[in-house]
Every structure is written in C-alpha cells, then in structure tokens.
C-alpha cells in the first residue's frame, strides 16, 4: 500500500498503532523482570540530549550570573549557599546520629553507626510527563549508581534511583504517586509509611488511630524499607484527621522543595551493606 493510500485510511493506521501500544503495555504488565530494554535504550539516548540542553542552558545561565550580573555578589552567594548546604547536611547527619545514639542508649549497647558513602549529582532534566514526578541526574552506572539507591538533599529525602543508564539516572521523587518510604514520627516514634500523592504534599499511611501524632511533628525515615537510611528528614506533619478506619489520616509537608532542586546526594552504600554494618555491631 502506497503512502498516499495509507493517508486515505487513517482508521487502519490508528488500529495498527493501538494494537502496537496494547502489545507494548501487555509485555510490561504481565512480566516483572527488571527494566525493559527499549526503555533503557531510549532513556539513555535522551538523557544525553537532556544533558546537552541543560548544559547549554546552564552555560548561558552561568555566564550571565557569573560575568554579567553582579559577578562579585553572585560568587559570594554561591560560596555562602555551599556553606549552608554543607552545614545542613552536617545537621542531617548529626540529627540521624543523635537519634541513633538515643536508640542505642536505650538498649544499653554501644554500636558504631555505619558511614554513608555518597556522591553529589546535578539535576539535568525534569519530568518528561506532568503525570510523573521524576528528575534526571548527571550520574549513572559509571559512577556506581544502582536501582533503588536513596537520593537525599541538604533539606531531606528526595527519592530513589529507578533507572540508571551509563552517564545519567532517573530519580523517582518522593512526591510521585508510586513512591513510598518507611517513616517514623520523631517525637512519639509512631511508625507508618509515607506515600506520594502526585502533588506537593505527602500522605502518611498506617499510623494507628491510638498513636500520638500532631501537626508540627517531624517525620523521619525509619529505614525499614531497605532503601532510605534511617533518621533522615522527610517533612513535617501538616494536619492530622481521624480516618474512616483504625488509622489516622495524616498529611505531611515535605522538607524538600522539589521545585527548586538543583543538586542532590546519592547514597552509594547499598541497603544490604548498611544492614550488614548494623548486624556486625550486634552482640
């Protein structure tokens, strides 16, 4: 059939396209065997395009900020911002360490906290579709990134690596509808699961109605999911309502401003390594 003939039969073209997409969807839904090759290849190729575009934009932006507009002030700002980020990361580590120490003190044991090995990464692209909350970072498997590695920022938990290619990786943000993290209310130690709802806020599920939780409480990672290290800030409880069942309905305001993310830290220490480190300290 010539091209001109095909153009006269859009219904046939639509039918072929729909069947093709249904087949593609079916192969993914029926099998859960890792990352589809087509997706990995497409992502890898477009990550390079995103890197180029972001590189161009960043170049222009850097030139403007660094040389045209307020050069001296910008440099000073960058240094101060870096210093603030370092301090915030230190604060996060200290907070996690303090909580850990408190736990250990209660157990009357002395254990060493496993050191987290991290690598800094820059965000080179946002989500390709508004229905998903993902970003692309400029580090990939060549920098030892793997699927399900935790991604943090100085403010708190950002998300996890879901698709690493050689020189880039896709990160699922905690606010994505498919994202979840084991969480604990820092003050009362009430445990639950924080899930994304696709908007700027989070929901904390499975917190019993009898648990002591109130607005303003800090929510941190519990570490039980095997992805996020324990004690890192997720956010603050915004409101607590009595749910229809035996659980609270809790909304959490994320500590991270996901719309302003520029740089993140990827935790390279795998969950198994962290667990092994903790098990080694067991008496």
């Amino acid at each position, binding site marked *: 059939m010539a091209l001109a003939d095909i153009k006269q039969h859009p219904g046939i*073209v639509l039918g072929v396209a729909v069947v093709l997409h249904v087949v593609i969807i079916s192969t993914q839904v029926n099998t859960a065997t890792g990352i589809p090759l087509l997706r990995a290849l497409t992502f890898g190729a477009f990550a390079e395009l995103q890197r180029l575009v972001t590189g161009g934009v960043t170049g222009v932006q850097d030139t403007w900020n660094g040389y045209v507009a307020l050069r001296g002030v910008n440099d000073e700002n960058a240094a101060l911002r870096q210093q603030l980020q370092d301090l915030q990361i230190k604060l996060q580590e200290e907070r996690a360490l303090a909580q850990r120490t408190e736990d250990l003190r209660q157990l009357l044991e002395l254990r060493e906290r496993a050191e987290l090995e991290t690598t800094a990464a820059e965000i080179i692209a*946002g989500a*390709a579709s508004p229905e*998903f909350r993902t970003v692309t970072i400029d580090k990939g498997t060549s920098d030892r990134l793997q699927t399900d590695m935790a991604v943090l920022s100085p403010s708190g938990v950002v998300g996890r690596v879901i698709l690493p290619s050689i020189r880039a990786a896709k990160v699922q943000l905690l606010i994505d509808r498919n994202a979840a993290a084991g969480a604990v209310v820092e003050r009362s130690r009430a445990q639950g699961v924080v899930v994304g709802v696709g908007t700027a806020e989070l929901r904390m599920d499975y917190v019993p109605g009898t648990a002591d939780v109130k607005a303003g409480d800090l929510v941190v990672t519990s570490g039980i999911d095997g992805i996020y290290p324990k004690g890192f800030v997720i956010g603050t409880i915004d409101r607590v309502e009595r749910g229809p069942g035996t659980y609270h309905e809790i909304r959490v305001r994320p500590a991270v401003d996901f719309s302003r993310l520029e740089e993140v830290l990827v935790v390279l220490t795998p969950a198994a390594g962290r667990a092994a480190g903790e098990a080694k300290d067991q008496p």
Partner: protein
Amino acid sequence: MKLAATLAALAAALALQTTLTTYVRETATLDFVLIVVVYLSLTSGPVTGVVTGSVAGLIQDALSSGVMGIGALAKTLVGFAAGRVGTQFIVTAPLPRFVVFIGATVLHAAVFMGLYVLLGLREFSAPYADVAGQAVGNAVVGVVGFQVLEWLPVFLARRRMGRPLRR
C-alpha cells in the same frame, strides 16, 4: 522536510518539557508534547496525528517512570481525534482551537488515568481540578502558539517587503 520539521517540533517540546519545568515551576502541569501533537494533528490530519502521537508518547513514556505505551496510546487517540476534528470542521479561530485543546487534554487524561486505574497500577484521587488546570493551561499555550506560528511568516514577509503590519 515535513518529517524533519515534525521531529524537530517534538524534540523541542520534549526539551521544553524537561527543561522549562525545572526552572519555572508554574509550567510543571503543562504538557508541551500534547500541545505539539494536537497542533500537528489539526494542521496535518489524523494519520500525522496518530504517528506523532505514538512516537511522542513512546518517547515521553520512556523518559517517565510509568508503563511504556499507556501515554503513547493516550496521545495516539488524541492525535487521531484532533486530526479528525481538523478535517471535519473549520478550526481556524482561537475559540474553536481553545475548545479542541481542552477536549484533547481531557481525553488524554481520561485514557491515561483510566488505563492506569483499570490495570490497578495507580490511584488518582479526585484529579478533576488538576486536569481542569492542565486543560486550560494547555489550551492557552496552544492557542497562543497557533497564533504566533500563523502570524510570524506574514510578519516576516511584510517586513521583507518593507510594509507595515497594518495599513
């Protein structure tokens, strides 16, 4: 030439989607790829709509974290529907175009979310406000884009001839 222009438009939309949304948070809900698919469908017909919708949707799916093919199927149907509307009706004024963009966004959301819910992969609790916001945003950007793309060649031609835009 037309194929190259189509591919360039899709690449530009994807680049805009992944770059602009990182810098301007207000654009996060817009779907530039959908806007381009609707534009090409209205101007070139349902076959172009189906092909561009399929290709653009697959690429967008690959770059997202969801199931590959769902966004593509939604955009394919939108491309076909918009193409059909473009061939059956006169859609040259801003208002009809605005309505087409609104309808396209709603159809896309219905198919996209419907398939995810049908397959039990995701929950969408009361997405009406989000979809409405996205529909209006897409429609405004789409109509303005349409006007600019139509006005630009005329403006450039008149400038070349040394005539003012309006007498």
